């Protein structure tokens, strides 16, 4: 059964959609019921990070193997990751409006880091379109992708932890314990993370097969 992960992703996400609204959550000021956003907003970002990691791996493979297929896969993974970053940004913005009181704050290094990372990956897509030769494109964009991944991690994982961030788990002490999550919430949060990561692999899979058909038609 090669479609097992698709079935699991749907089951996990459906479970989090239903139980995520019903289960008891900690009663906290300011956050109130919006703490449930942790089940939906955070896993989207995890899926994005997962896809960018897949993209990095395929870029490295493309460099070592001189392989066009890996380059196409790296591009598709980055595209799916980019796609996930957009709902991640908008949901975060909405959540911020009702808890931090503003749509966007430049005080928070995580928000700025995410904005810069998205621009970095946009530059990756533009770079790909600007090179005509296939092999050349594969190598140049793979090298750039390695830098893009490192920069993204610096901007959204490292820098927010060095300075003060409004995001929980940042500003010195990175840990899940900082999320104000109790075990009830973990019962939903972890399946949500797994579900959305598997879902992103599903989209990645379809994207790859379409590219494969395109390549065959072009030959």
């Amino acid at each position, binding site marked *: 059964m090669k479609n097992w992960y698709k079935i699991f992703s749907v089951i996990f996400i*459906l479970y989090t959609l239903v139980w995520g609204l019903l289960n008891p959550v900690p009663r906290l000021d300011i*956050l109130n019921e919006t703490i449930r956003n942790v089940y939906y907003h955070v896993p989207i970002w995890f899926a994005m990070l997962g896809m960018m990691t897949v993209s990095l791996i395929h870029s490295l493979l493309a460099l070592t193997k001189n392989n066009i297929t890996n380059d196409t896969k790296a591009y598709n993974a980055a595209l799916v990751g980019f796609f996930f970053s957009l709902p991640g940004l908008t949901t975060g913005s909405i959540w911020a409006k009702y808890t931090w009181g503003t749509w966007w704050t430049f005080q928070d290094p995580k928000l700025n880091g995410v904005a810069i990372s998205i621009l970095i990956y946009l530059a990756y897509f533009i770079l790909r379109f600007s090179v005509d030769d296939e092999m050349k494109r594969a190598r140049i964009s793979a090298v750039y992708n390695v830098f893009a991944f490192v920069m993204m991690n610096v901007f959204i994982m490292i820098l927010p932890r060095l300075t003060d961030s409004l995001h929980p788990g940042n500003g010195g002490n990175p840990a899940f314990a900082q999320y104000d999550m109790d075990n009830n919430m973990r019962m939903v949060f972890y399946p949500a993370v797994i579900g959305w990561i598997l879902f992103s692999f599903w989209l990645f899979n379809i994207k790859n097969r379409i590219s494969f058909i395109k390549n065959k038609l072009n030959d």
Partner: protein
Amino acid sequence: MIKRILSLVFLISALFSSAQETVSSPQMADGFRSEGKIYVVITVIAMIFIALVVFLIVLERKVNKLEKQINNK
């Protein structure tokens, strides 16, 4: 004497009464969850997600067909 005792009684009773609820807990959607038909909302969300998944499955089938056609050529 009676005046003093009465005023003392009123004073002490004032200590135990309060105009507002002093013990407050963060506001949560408790009523919404108990009889506010939250189940309807959950069903709607689930249906939307299921519709998306069905669309994705149909899309995948089409890709499958194209793959078969190309491999047969």
